[in-house]
């Protein structure tokens, strides 16, 4: 029996709704491989953005084993489409787009503003001081920061990995 679909958090809508092969004998005419939206997101965070599975799982708010399961399923499906010359359709899953968040530069809170641009911070009332919340960028920035902190001073332990 198939597992019932659970709701997942996803931050970005896929750029296209699918892919079609060319050349060869199939032209994608057979049944397309269906990639779920959360599978697309898992592959994007992990292979495209280069996050660790732990970091990616945190963004999607799923456990690490659940993330791994979603990610492996995405890889298997894409491999099948490549090898069998089938088209791919990115659709379905049960996802909620969690992308309407802003960070206030004044008080540091994070708040949701849905589809509309915010005019003031709902916590401190500050205006004109927010940026769109970008979880991937935030993780990359803080990783870069901690790698640099221990570097070059000659006194602290170097945190850079070899």
């Amino acid at each position, binding site marked *: 029996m198939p597992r019932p679909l659970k*709701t*997942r*958090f996803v931050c970005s809508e896929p750029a296209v709704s699918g892919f079609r092969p060319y050349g060869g004998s199939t032209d994608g005419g057979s049944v397309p491989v269906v990639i779920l939206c959360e599978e697309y997101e898992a592959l994007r965070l992990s292979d495209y953005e280069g996050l660790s599975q732990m970091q990616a799982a945190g963004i999607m*708010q799923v456990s690490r084993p659940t993330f791994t399961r979603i990610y492996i399923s995405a890889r298997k499906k894409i491999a099948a489409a490549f090898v069998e010359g089938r088209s791919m359709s990115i659709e379905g899953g049960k996802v*909620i787009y*969690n992308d309407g*968040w802003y960070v206030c530069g004044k*008080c*540091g*809170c*994070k*708040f*949701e*503003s*849905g589809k509309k641009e915010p005019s*003031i*911070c*709902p*916590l*401190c*009332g500050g205006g004109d001081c927010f940026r769109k919340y970008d979880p991937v960028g935030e993780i990359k920035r803080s990783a870069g920061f901690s790698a640099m902190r221990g570097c070059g001073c000659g006194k602290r332990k170097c945190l850079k990995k070899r």
Partner: protein
Amino acid sequence: MITAISCSGNSMDSQVDTRFGRCPFFAIFDSESGKLRFEENPGKEAESGAGPAAVKFIASQGAQKIVSGEFGFKVKPLFDQLDIQMISIEGNKTVREIMELLKSN
């Protein structure tokens, strides 16, 4: 404007509890009258559905904003529907500090 704050105790010096559905108390602060009261979270020990129950409870208190930490995918669409704005903070802030921020608003 009424704001609900998920918190660990029922005093102004209690910390904001970042576990939205499981916090023991909600501080209900009315920025117009300056009145503050504490309500026990009725769903804090529920086996399941604590998040959605807490959303309903907060809505019944007339809140239009909620200050907490992480909001899961069970509660996000509910807050969106009810037009209650989610505010997420990190670190250790007290109810008093949140009130000060809201007052300057």
